[in-house]
């Protein structure tokens, strides 16, 4: 079955440093979504990418979808303590209404 891998599993940065998490799928995706889960919380939708090579920005967050639609990345510029949490990517396949979640990247930001 489809697998979605995320790296790194964990990253600890100083406030103000940049952060990037990468997502790779074993199959071509129709779309990819990103979620954030705060400690003790539940996953919250951030964004969806659909087009090959698509780039979207949300303030300090930049999301990219690879040209082959098999990989994606989330980049946070100048991290803040409020960015702490686990970031998940989730891949969708054409004709299917379910998502395959990666195992997430846990981000810790020290002040």
């Amino acid at each position, binding site marked *: 079955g489809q697998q979605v891998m995320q790296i790194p599993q964990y990253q600890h940065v100083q406030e103000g440093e940049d952060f990037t998490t990468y997502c790779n799928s074993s199959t071509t995706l*129709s*779309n990819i*979504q990103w979620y954030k889960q705060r400690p003790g*919380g*539940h*996953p*919250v*939708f951030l964004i*969806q990418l659909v087009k090959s090579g698509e780039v979207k920005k949300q303030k300090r967050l930049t999301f990219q979808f690879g040209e082959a639609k098999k990989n994606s990345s989330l980049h946070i510029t100048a991290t803040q303590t409020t960015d702490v949490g686990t970031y*998940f990517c*989730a891949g*969708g396949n*054409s*004709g*299917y*209404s*379910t*998502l*395959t*979640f*990666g*195992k*997430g990247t846990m981000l810790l930001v020290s002040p």
Partner: protein
Amino acid sequence: DARVTQTPRDKVTEMGQEVTMRCQPILGHNTVFWYRQTMKQGLELLAYFRNRAPLDDSGMPKDRFSAEMPDATLATLKIQPSEPRDSAVYFCASGLVLSGRANEQFFGPGTRLTVL
């Protein structure tokens, strides 16, 4: 502000007992998902429903888990009998799926289950 609700938020039970978790999806959403989250396995899809009909429950251990959606405002996940390895956080999520493509999923707060 529409939200998915889940009850109970925490459940501690003994091995062999029945556990029932409930979820109220967001009104108007046509698809409901049940996930299990553990440190080791991450987020695993257990089952999902479209317009209350079960579409896929291949992620669930069939001998002990069952999922139902008796009406549009209630989805249930039952474990009978429960085992210590079932300890996890169980999330319900709902979404509006159109044209068969996965769209944004709205997660509930989860039920943290501990089986002793």
